[in-house]
């Protein structure tokens, strides 16, 4: 089961994201890593221009 019923004491945004195994951290890790792709390609373009 990817999504489980909500069981914690208080409903909350974070608790809601946490309803399936790993969904909360998967979400957070993705949000953290994605902009690094953008930083990577920005830097790549800069380095090429310098060359």
């Amino acid at each position, binding site marked *: 089961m990817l999504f489980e019923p909500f*069981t*914690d*004491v*208080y409903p*909350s*945004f*974070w608790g809601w994201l946490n309803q399936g195994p790993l969904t909360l951290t998967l979400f*957070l890790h993705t*949000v*953290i890593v994605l*902009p*690094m792709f953008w*930083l*990577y390609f920005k*830097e*790549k373009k800069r*380095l*090429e221009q*310098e*060359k």
Partner: protein
Amino acid sequence: MAKSHSVWTSIRFWRQSAAWVTGFAVVLLILLTFDTMRQIKMGGKRVPSPSVINNHIDYKYSKKRGHEVPVIGDKEPFFGKQWSDEEAAALLHKGKLTSQAKNCMNCHTLLGNGAYYAPDLTKAWLDPKWKQMMPMVGAKTKEEAIAKFLQHPEMYPTHERRMPNLKITPDEAKALVAFLKHMSAIDTNGFPRGFSKGVKEFEAGGTYAH
């Protein structure tokens, strides 16, 4: 060096990435902290109000949560009376202060944090051993037994390792019992697990073979 054109060796790339990741982690932590503060403020469902000392407290398995949770039951007298909200809050305040002033945390763990020289106090209020202790210290109720023990632990050794006399006054002892009772009503997501389930074994002399 041919490699100096690789992004992977660009200091600027790593510096920007470090700034982004750190900044984002800090912002997330702050947001999570706001949500947690809301959930653990005193008087809520996770950390009950001080007046919970007027209620019976139990620790039972919840099918829905998948672990034990505190169950706050009917009213019961605490040191022979019902405590008003203000009285209960003042008592808990004194208890928490005393726990710090006497440094309980450098022998015991509280909510699992502290020192490992003496038992965890998270659910000490619910420990079945107090039933045994009541006749030993000459007390009629559990709260009295704990209070008596705390004032003169050196007089009631049950194990080789004794708790020392920390010059705890009767008032401070009462307050500490309130602090312990309140702590046992905090929802700790099932810690400790299977609390004191070994008790039957002890009562049977440490064996199931009887």
